[in-house]
Each structure stands twice: as structure tokens, then as C-alpha cells.
């Protein structure tokens, strides 16, 4: 019998232990703009901190225990408790440290916290993945893992942390930025899908078009995002000044219009590629049989080709959507708003927790979009053995 039953867990526990020992769990700074002094986990003066050892030890046991379903469930629960416990400890410690410090002082989450929390989260996700439950159950379990953290935040237990104080000071700005961000992504995906899918179908039907179409889309994809924004600046500005109607509608060299346009151009490649790949993998024999039995071309497309191509097509849209969530951050540089505005504001004033306030929801959005599309694709009937 092998001693190590779960190498992923071994790696995560080792990395977590190293992070706990070597990296600061929290940092304390006299104000929000200077780099703080690190406080390691061992330096914390809280007797309750030892409670966290319990789920940590359980996780370590999960490495060597036989990888039964019961072990995996225990690992998932232990990792969830560890994650919640880490967040709770950070919040509680920040509160007690802040109470003893001047109001301008900031208690921030340190590298040790982030790495530990990441390890705990990955351990939980990995255990859920290994349980091989249905996609819906997997998604629910993935949400459940984060529930303790959400509950702690909602209860105000984390209010003393610098991140929470940045949020408290910008509640409205944050909400607007989040909505803007999602709106920009949605506004870009709509034209992308309505152009990309027909373009993909056309490229599939006419092999001669495929080369040029992909050559152009690939070329666009290689242009750096900032350069593309720059390239669009002049023509859109000219267009807006030539057509006052457009200008009144908000079209200009900077702002939302070039962002949506650039995102659309970027997103076309994955969508067109997904459409062509989806249609290509439809078995030729099924199409021949359908034709031979007397189905019309339209019916073959609706009943056979489209449903069989759809999951692959959707994977293309998923990639486009995740990519757009990330690219929209950069769009803040040309005044499109969104979460990127927080990031660049934070960078400009070297307030790292403000940067984090912008980046964290971007990551969460990406994960959520990815999971949502995967769930949508897997609801379909299995296609191959």
C-alpha cells in the first residue's frame, strides 16, 4: 500500500505549513499608505488560535488515510472549517490590534494568510472534485465552502481589517464599479455571440473562408489590449466628431464605446473557434444518415448539428467571457470605469488594500462566470462514450 494517498493534499498541507511558519499572517502599519510590519501566526497572542490546529491535523491525516468517500468528505469539511477559522482569526486579531492602535493604523492580511487560505480552499475544492458528484452538487458544495467566510463578513467580524475599511469608505463606488464591470462584459458578449456564431457557421460551411477568418481573428488576438484601445481611440474620436448623434449616445475615443468594441474583437476568436470546432466534431455519418433519410438541410442543422455542436460552442463563449472579465480591468485606463478603476486608483496612491478591493471581485467574477458556463454545458446529454 502506498503511504501517500493524496499527493495534491500533501503539497497543499506542506505549502500551508511553510506559509504559516515563514510568512506574516497579518501586517500592521501606522497608516494606509506605508508598508506594514509583519506578524507571524506564532506571534499571535490568542489562545484560541490553537483551535485551528484541529482541522489542520485532520487535513494532514487525509494525506495518508485510504481515499474513501468518507475521508474525502472529512477533508472537505476540515478544509472549509480551516478556511473559515483563518478568516475569523484574522478578523478577531485585527480587531484587538486595532483597539490598541491609533485610528489611522491599518491591520492588513499578510502573505501567510493568503497562502494558507488559498491552500485550504484548494484542498476543499480538490476533495469535492474527487468525490465525483453531479455538476450541480459540485457547484453547491463549492458555494458551501465559502459560506463561513461570507457569514463572517456579513456579521461584521472582519470590519477592523484594512480591506474592509477600504470597502467601508467606498461602498457606493464599489457597487457602481461592480455593476459597470458586469455591464461592460455583457455588452461585449452580446455582439460577440451574435456575430461570432454566424461567422463560425459560415467559416465551417465554406472551407475557403476559414483560413482568412482565423488569420484576421488571430492577428487581433495578438495585439496587446492597451495597444488595441489606443488604436481605436483615433477612429472612434473622428467618428464621434463627424456624427453628433453618436457622440450624444456616448460614443467617443475613450470610455465605454472603445472598450466594448475592443472586447468584442478579442472575444470573437474563441467564439468563432468554438463554433467551428463544435460543428467539425459532429459525426459526418450522422449528417449523411440524416440526409439519406430525408431530413431537410435546415432540420439537420437544428436537430442534429446545432445540439451536437452546442457544448463545444459554449466552451468558446465561456473562454471569451472569462477573458473579457479580465480585460475589462485594463479598460479602466481609458475611462470605461469598472473594477479596474479601483485597481488603478490604488496603484496610483500605493494603497495595496484598495488594489485588492478591485482585484478580488474580478477573480470571484471569473470563477463564477466559468462555473456558470460549465454548469450550463454539462446539463446536456452525454455525447460520446
Amino acid at each position, binding site marked *: 500500500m502506498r503511504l501517500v494517498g493524496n499527493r495534491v493534499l500533501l503539497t497543499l498541507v506542506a505549502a500551508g505549513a511553510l506559509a504559516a511558519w515563514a510568512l506574516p499572517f497579518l501586517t500592521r502599519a501606522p497608516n494606509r499608505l506605508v508598508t506594514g510590519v509583519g506578524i507571524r501566526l506564532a506571534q499571535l497572542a490568542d489562545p484560541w488560535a490553537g483551535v485551528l490546529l484541529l482541522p489542520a491535523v485532520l487535513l494532514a491525516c487525509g494525506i495518508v488515510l485510504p481515499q474513501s468517500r468518507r475521508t474525502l468528505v472529512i477533508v472537505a469539511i476540515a478544509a472549509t472549517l480551516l478556511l473559515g477559522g483563518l478568516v475569523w482569526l484574522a478578523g478577531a486579531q485585527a480587531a484587538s490590534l486595532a483597539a490598541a492602535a491609533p485610528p489611522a493604523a491599518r491591520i492588513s492580511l499578510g502573505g501567510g494568510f493568503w497562502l494558507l487560505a488559498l491552500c485550504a480552499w484548494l484542498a476543499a475544492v480538490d476533495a469535492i472534485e474527487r468525490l465525483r458528484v453531479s455538476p450541480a452538487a459540485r457547484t453547491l458544495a463549492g458555494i458551501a465552502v465559502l459560506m463561513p467566510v461570507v457569514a463572517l463578513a456579513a456579521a461584521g467580524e472582519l470590519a477592523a481589517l484594512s480591506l474592509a475599511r477600504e470597502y467601508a469608505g467606498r461602498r457606493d463606488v464599489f457597487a457602481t464599479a461592480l455593476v459597470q464591470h458586469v455591464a461592460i462584459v455583457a455588452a461585449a458578449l452580446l455582439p460577440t455571440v451574435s456575430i461570432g456564431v454566424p461567422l463560425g457557421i459560415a467559416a465551417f460551411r465554406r472551407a475557403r473562408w476559414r483560413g482568412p477568418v482565423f488569420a484576421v481573428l488571430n492577428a487581433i488576438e495578438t495585439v496587446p489590449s492597451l495597444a488595441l484601445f489606443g488604436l481605436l481611440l483615433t477612429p472612434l474620436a473622428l467618428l464621434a466628431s463627424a456624427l453628433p448623434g453618436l457622440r450624444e449616445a456616448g460614443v467617443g475615443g475613450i470610455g465605454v464605446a472603445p472598450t466594448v468594441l475592443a472586447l468584442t474583437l478579442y472575444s470573437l476568436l474563441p467564439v468563432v473557434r468554438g463554433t467551428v470546432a463544435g460543428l467539425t466534431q459532429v*459525426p*459526418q*455519418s*450522422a*449528417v*449523411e*444518415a*440524416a*440526409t*439519406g*433519410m*430525408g*431530413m*431537410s438541410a435546415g*432540420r439537420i442543422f437544428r*436537430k*442534429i448539428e446545432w*445540439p*451536437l455542436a452546442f457544448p463545444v460552442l459554449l466552451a468558446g463563449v465561456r473562454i471569451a467571457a472569462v477573458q473579457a472579465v479580465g480585460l475589462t480591468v485594463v479598460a479602466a485606463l481609458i475611462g470605461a470605469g469598472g473594477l479596474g478603476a479601483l485597481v488603478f486608483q490604488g496603484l496610483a496612491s500605493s494603497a495595496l488594500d484598495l488594489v485588492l478591493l478591485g482585484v478580488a471581485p474580478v477573480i470571484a467574477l471569473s470563477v463564477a462566470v466559468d462555473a456558470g458556463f460549465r454548469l450550463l454545458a454539462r446539463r*446536456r*446529454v*452525454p*455525447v*460520446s*462514450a
Partner: protein
Amino acid sequence: MIRFEHVGKSFAGAIAIDDLSLSIAPGEFVVLIGRSGAGKSTALKMINRLVEHDRGRILFAGDEIRKFKPEELRLRMGYAIQSIGLFPHWTVEQNVAAVPDLLGWPKARIRDRVTELLELLGLAPAQFRSRYPHELSGGQQQRVGVARALAGDPDVLLMDEPFGSLDPVTRDALQREIARIHGTSGKTIVLVTHDIDEALRLATRIALLDHGRLVQVGTPREILERPADDFVTGFVGKGEIGIKLLGLETVAPYVRPGAVAPGESIAATATLREALSTFVARRVDRLAVVDADGRPLGALSLADLVKGRG
């Protein structure tokens, strides 16, 4: 039922079918046979207009096939292919129901038809109707493919090497099924193969093609006894003509009633080819013969096989 009149077809200048004339009567089982590239599949696909002929005329039920809309023509002809082409996202039931669905049959009738066909092809309906193609073996998939081709109760069944990719045991079973279906339904069947044994076993008439031309058409016996030229002789296998002739007949007419023979008996429905094999394997010259219920009928003598009837 189907009539080729001086039909020709070229692909990019290369002649695929050259002056093909062939008349297929209702209820016939015609096998188109030839080497790869002989044009047999092209000839078959011209019947349901998957390939359009560019010279001559093809008549279906008395009318030139171009007078039909392709979809309407195809709905009246079942079509089964070697790669089967089941729709992977549909259940067995949905696959078989595809053509009845196109024909707009009522739901209850479609359901009954699916049950009937699955039974006909030896697939227990309760067990198979809601399965997906990837859950079936190759042989089961081809059974579903044949059931689907029969579903709309077509006048004609077109089959393009339907058993080509199956193992010998499964192929044998499916050949027996299709022979039985032909016998009971009286449907006109046109089947393409390159397997001479399959052709001899199934066909009422064999059409042998080479380089897009019809070399010989005739019953299996005519092909074996009077091959038109050396090509035909070579195709059926010069050294095996006698054995293959024996394969065309059953034991029954050769039985001497009342005669007895020692040892295990042979069924009256077995072919003479099987009987010869048994003679040689057992090193005897007489075999006891029984009917389907195992009752003794008499004996078969090796000498009678050589002499033939009459």
C-alpha cells in the same frame, strides 16, 4: 420499382458510372458488388439522389427521380450505411422514430412502430428504447440503424455495406435477420457489398460492377455456373465455385426418406456446404437428417451432393 436507363456519372472528368442499365422489380433483393471504386456505392446513392446522375434516366415507381423533391424521395426509401450514423444525442427510441416523426405520424403509432421494430431486430424494447447509442455494442448499433431505416415502412431499402464493420458472428446474425425481414416483408432491397459470400447468401440477383460498368447481372446460381468472363470467375473465386454452389441449396431436397445413418444428425435447413463440411470432418459418407423439431427425416448421401438433383 427502380430502373436505371443508360445512366452515367463523372466526378471531375473521371467516369464513375458508365452506361448502367438495370431494372429492379418490386420485392427483389439486388446486391451490387464489386471491388473498391467500382462505382457500386455511387450507383446506390444515385437512387436516393445523394449523388445526382448526369446522363441517362433513373425511374422510381415509373417516374424519373428528378420529378420528386429529394426529401420526399428519400422518405420513401430506407437508408442504412456502414458507419451507421446514429444520432448520438438521441435515444434508441428517438433514433428509430426519426422518419415516422418526419412523416408526421401520431405519437401512439410511432411508439408502437418503435416497439415492433426493436422486437423485429432482437432488441428487447423495455431494455433498449431509452438507451443512448454510445451505450450499445457495434452490432446493436447497426440493428438500431436497420430498424431506423425500416421505420417509415419504406417501399425500398438501400443499404451501403451495412455489415462491413461488424465481427463475423454479429455479421452472420444480422445477415440472417435481413434475409428474414426480406422474406416476410417483401420489401425491395438494394444492398452494396464487396463480400461475395454475403451477396450469394442474400441476393435474389447479383449485379457485378467494375470500373463503373455492369459486368454481369444474374441470380447467384447463374453467376456461379455461367460467369460472363474471367473477371467474374476471379471475383467469385475460381477454386471455390463448387463449394459456393453447395452453399446455395439446403439439405432438404436431397434427403432419402426412410434411410438411416449412424452418429449425430444434421438439420434439413442446413446448406449443402455445411453438410459437406460435416462429411469431411466426421469422415463418413452418410448423415442422418432431422427436421426443425428434431424428428428423423432420413439420410443424406455424399454421392448425391456430387451428382446434383435431376
